[in-house]
């Protein structure tokens, strides 16, 4: 313990934390805070996908579906006055986690492109069902979601409608997600994941049950995705089937790979970049997709292992400081 407080790394992270905590007070106007909140939610999402793609090496295109299912479960429970936000969120998270395991069991027998396209189909079907099962999901859009609202805890009224408060909520969840994933991948379980990623046959030969660990990581990913979905729906108040679409899954995949698959920081960098770039490119109007694609291409061609993959490869010291 004593060493921790003397290590520069520790204090560097404390500093970063302080900056993040101060952010809403430095950003002027609620647009940037909104972006910060969205980025936060996506960091949770992408970090969880990174667990599946980056560390276990399974290219999943179903993550958007789990995000959507989480959001819809959480929202429907609230809209139908079955539960309030927090218990609804809990139910959504558990439900989606279990669903992830049930879906993963058969799907993960398929490998590489077969798994990727198979999961892509899952997303497409999920979005279709959410759109067409109107009685349950409200069709093209589900609105009027209460969210966490303005509870009074120990005499203190916490207004989750205020951007600042929600920012801190998301920030905390994001930090805990990152810490959790970081710890998992640096544990025996995480090593099993990476063993599967790098040499499945050898992994099996040293006693790793590939199916067990693939399903584990897949359903953990789904579970965290649902958490992000719940936070998103609670903040937006309205959701639509597009959040479960294959397009969403593609975006998430791009964020993981551009940021740097299999690196904790990569998920964060990728998310920030892919949220900020389109905002910046608003100025380019109809040239937006063109330039966006071009930048994407250039990044991935010059940094095939993603931005942080490249950065961490520069010097072991960097790799040691930036996870």
């Amino acid at each position, binding site marked *: 313990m004593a060493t921790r407080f003397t290590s520069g790394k520790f204090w560097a992270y404390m500093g970063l934390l302080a900056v993040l905590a101060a952010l809403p007070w430095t950003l002027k106007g609620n647009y940037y805070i909104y972006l910060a909140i969205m980025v936060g939610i996506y960091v949770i999402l992408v970090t969880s996908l990174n667990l599946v*793609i980056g560390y276990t090496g399974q*290219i999943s295109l179903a993550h958007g579906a789990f995000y959507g299912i989480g959001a819809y479960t959480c929202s429907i429970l609230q809209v139908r006055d079955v539960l309030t936000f927090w218990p609804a969120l809990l139910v959504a998270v558990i439900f989606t986690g279990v669903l992830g395991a049930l879906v993963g069991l*058969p*799907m993960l*027998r*398929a*490998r*590489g*492109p*077969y*798994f*990727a*396209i*198979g999961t*892509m*189909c*899952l997303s*497409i*079907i999920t979005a*279709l*069902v959410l759109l*067409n099962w109107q009685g349950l999901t409200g069709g093209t859009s589900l609105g009027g979601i209460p969210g966490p609202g303005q509870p009074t805890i120990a005499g203190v009224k916490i207004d989750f409608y205020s951007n600042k408060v929600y920012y801190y909520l998301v920030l905390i969840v994001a930090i805990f997600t990152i810490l959790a994933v970081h710890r998992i991948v640096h544990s025996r379980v995480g090593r099993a994941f990476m063993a599967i990623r790098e040499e499945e046959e050898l992994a099996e030969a040293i006693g790793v049950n590939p199916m067990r660990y693939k399903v584990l990581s897949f359903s953990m990913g789904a579970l965290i995705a649902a958490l992000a979905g719940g936070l998103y729906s609670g903040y937006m108040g309205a959701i639509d089937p597009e959040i479960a679409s*294959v397009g969403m899954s*593609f975006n998430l*995949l*791009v964020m993981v*790979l*551009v940021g740097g*698959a299999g690196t904790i920081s990569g998920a964060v960098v990728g998310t920030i970049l892919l949220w900020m770039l389109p905002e910046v490119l608003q100025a380019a109007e*109809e*040239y*937006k*997709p*063109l*330039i*966006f*694609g*071009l930048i*994407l*291409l250039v990044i*991935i*061609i010059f940094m*095939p*292992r993603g931005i942080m993959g490249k950065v961490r490869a520069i010097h072991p010291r960097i790799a040691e400081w930036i996870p």
Partner: protein
Amino acid sequence: MEQIAQQLMNGLITGSAYALMALGLALIYGIMHVANFALGAIYMIGAFLMYYFVRWVGGGSYLLGLPLVMVVMACVGALTERYAFRLVRSAPHATGFIVALGLYMILEGGSCVLFGHDWREIASPYNDVILNFGPVIVTLQRLLIFVVCVLLAVCVYVFIMKTLTGKMIRATSQNHDAASLVGISVSRMSLYTFGLGSGLAAAAGAMIAPTFMVGPAMGLEPVTKAFVVIILGGMGSVRGAIIGGFALGMVESLGAAFVTSMYKDAFAFGILIIVLVFKPTGLFRR
């Protein structure tokens, strides 16, 4: 009964477009192990080229436009290989996928800027010729789609199986190192394959477009379906791609007809999932 016949015909025609796309994808996957989404954009641009060809040269020479479109887009496809995919050949497979997505965005975004967002029709003369085979009704254009697709598919099949280049391509897709050992230039082979694949996709676009409308957004759906097809057929299997394409078309139209049209698109994807559950490596693995 009449309906079944008509639905089979509908399926056969949509299926033939899927088959062409899938064939292109399968060849490219076989050689470079990259899921080339950009073919969706190639398909769309192929349709646009045909639109302008017909507008400038006139609908009469519609069929003359086809080879032209194919050649142009084959060159475009080759360019994407040379200046994008080849650069990440040694990188992990997923990287190639991102390159494909990037290219798709560039091509689609580009055509939005060039051609605009609105939908237009291709005035093919064969659209208005309606043929009746007993209960089955089909326009000459749609019959042409089927015929041309089958012809192209057969040609490609023969090319791959019989000709020397075809054999070299197959050898390369089996093992790059071995191929280069016996003196095959892997780069040239993949260049050819990307050209061929793109040409096929463009042909699919140019043929199918006159039966509905042309717009920059038209590419995504077919390429997604084509992916389902090559997975069903077993990645990289030429035979699987062709058979799978027609099969998928049939399943879709029959499913929509006799189950529900609300989930028309779900059938393709649902079936794929079921297949993967029971045969995780597709139906015809090569």
